[in-house]
């Protein structure tokens, strides 16, 4: 256990953690405040002018003062679309992780506490799920969905679909982590003490065991958000993710990809830099959290 004060002290004494935290903070603020800060609303077709398409960044010859990082093929400012796109990527990443965590924690808790055939069944299910690649399953599900409904309906439900598909495909990671810590906690005497009182298994699982397994859940949540954003970006890059008129970072990279060879490198490069920064920051924070929260790696503190 680590107190909040100790946690803060550790954070402030680690330059990597501060750096990653700052990058993440800037990106999240940028995404949340996009409607107020962005010079342009890329969703509003009235603000777009096809004459502004493929303008280079403002400091380049031919650049326009209004578009700091240039524009894409439809005349949207790259800087504004990145701000909105980061928001969509984060929304899908966090949403998918919430779905993963709810499914995975519940199933992992039940598997670990009940044991026996329930455990074997759930864990074999997890094995099967993990042996099919997430990307492959997502591609099949989304391709079917795209084929079954027309483009408008698809555009409306794309975010929900992506969250559900990525969420359902990745639950075994949470389930396995939670199950293994439940197996460790279940043997501890405080669980026996609760059973001596006669508490029903439901209360022991949720009230006693679950709170003691949340530390690893917190750590993998951070890393899984990065993972989910990556998957979403890959799907969007393949044309199966967010539609071009509501772009995520992945669809932005894809939309610019066609223009790289015609010299408009900025449409792809800048969203890609933001994506890399976001993933790196999340992964570094996840690693740092794991080190801090793992009592085996900590000495003489707290």
């Amino acid at each position, binding site marked *: *256990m680590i107190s909040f004060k100790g946690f803060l002290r550790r954070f402030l004494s680690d330059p990597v953690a501060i750096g990653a935290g700052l990058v993440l903070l800037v990106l999240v603020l940028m995404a949340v405040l996009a409607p107020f800060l962005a010079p342009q609303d890329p969703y509003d077709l009235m603000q777009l002018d096809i004459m502004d398409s493929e303008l280079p960044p403002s400091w380049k010859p031919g650049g326009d003062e209004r578009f700091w990082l240039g524009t894409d093929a439809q005349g949207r400012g790259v800087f504004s679309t990145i701000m909105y796109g980061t928001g969509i990527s984060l929304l899908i990443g966090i949403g998918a992780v919430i779905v993963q965590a709810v499914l995975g924690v519940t199933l992992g808790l039940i598997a670990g506490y009940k044991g026996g055939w329930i455990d074997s069944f759930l864990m074999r299910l997890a094995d099967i799920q993990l042996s099919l690649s997430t990307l492959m399953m997502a591609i099949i599900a989304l391709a079917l969905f795209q084929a079954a409904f027309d483009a408008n309906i698809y555009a409306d439900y794309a975010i929900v679909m992506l969250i559900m598909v990525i969420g359902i495909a990745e639950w075994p990671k949470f389930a396995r982590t939670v199950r293994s810590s439940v197996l460790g906690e279940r043997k*501890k*005497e*405080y669980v*026996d*003490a*609760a*059973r*001596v*009182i*006669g*508490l*029903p298994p439901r209360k022991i699982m949720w009230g*006693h065991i679950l*709170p*003691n397994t949340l530390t690893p859940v917190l750590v993998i949540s951070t890393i899984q958000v990065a993972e989910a954003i990556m998957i979403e970006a890959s799907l969007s890059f393949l044309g199966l993710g967010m539609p071009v008129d509501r772009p995520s970072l992945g669809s932005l990279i894809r939309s610019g990809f066609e223009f790289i060879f015609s010299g408009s490198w900025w449409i792809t490069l800048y969203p890609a830099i933001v994506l890399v920064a976001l993933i790196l920051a999340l992964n570094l924070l996840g690693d740092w959290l794991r080190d801090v929260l793992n009592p085996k790696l900590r000495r003489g503190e707290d």
Partner: protein
Amino acid sequence: MTTGPIIETRGLEVRFPLPTHFLSRQKPVLHALNGVDIAISPGETFCVVGESGCGKTTLGRAIMGLLEPSAGEILFRGQRIDGMDETTRKPIRRDMQMVFQNPYASLNPRRNVYETLAEPVRHLMPEKSPAELRQQVEEVLDATGCDPSWQRRLPHEFSGGQRQRIAIARALVTNPAFIVADEPISALDVSIQAQILNLLTDLQGERGLTYLFITHDLSVVEHFGTRVAVMYLGAVMELAPAETIFDNPKHPYTRLLLDAIPKLEGGSFDKPRTPGELPDPVNPPPGCPFAPRCPMAEDLCRRDRPRLRELPNGTHAACHFAE
């Protein structure tokens, strides 16, 4: 209320199936308890001693309902409690509580002291009002020598001895009559052990508690116990009042145990000893379980398992040659 024993076991057996490959034809079974009959009278401190693997902890856990017995009966005040459904058992749980060995694992690290102590009352005595609950928790904290200011603090803020006091308070908060204490002092430092033993003695005097005290430490038994059961490989080898067992041990295993206690006067370790090990509990020998280590064992011992029988001085011993 009856004057009979508060806890009684009759032919209690616990077997654990060992994990095997699902294609394997053998079904090996570990005999953790092998026909245990004990009866504990109200107000007693009944000690169970033995080495690891002798089944003493299994006995305590079976009585508390943490393990299902494979055969035999467990009775609380003459009422059979093994296999009882939860609604009938609930009022009985109030009267039976347990103190565990490791105070670092027996308190939920995420719950403060008040929550830990309030839970048994909330669950087992739902008729109590919040004010009564608070009063009950404060009373039990006071009785176990805990400071009332501890209530809002988490277990990691306390030392081992303080935690064990809190764990004892949790066991006492529903005012039980019977407590199973499973090695309650063996994880504590020497100077703290005396504090906890004194606390248990005081509480017994104040509340008329009955203890089932499980330990490997014979010097504690000698000081603390009224009756002692010595266990070996899932069976009771000798059962006698504490004074008798220390002054006049009848079973050769009891003698071996007593000889092994290091003494302040010295002399216990002077003669070399041959290695003795517990026989495999999965395939126990057919005769007396202690025969392979016993200096007096004869063919009879390796063939026939001795039953627990009463000797002239009132001691019960499971040995063909004890007298």
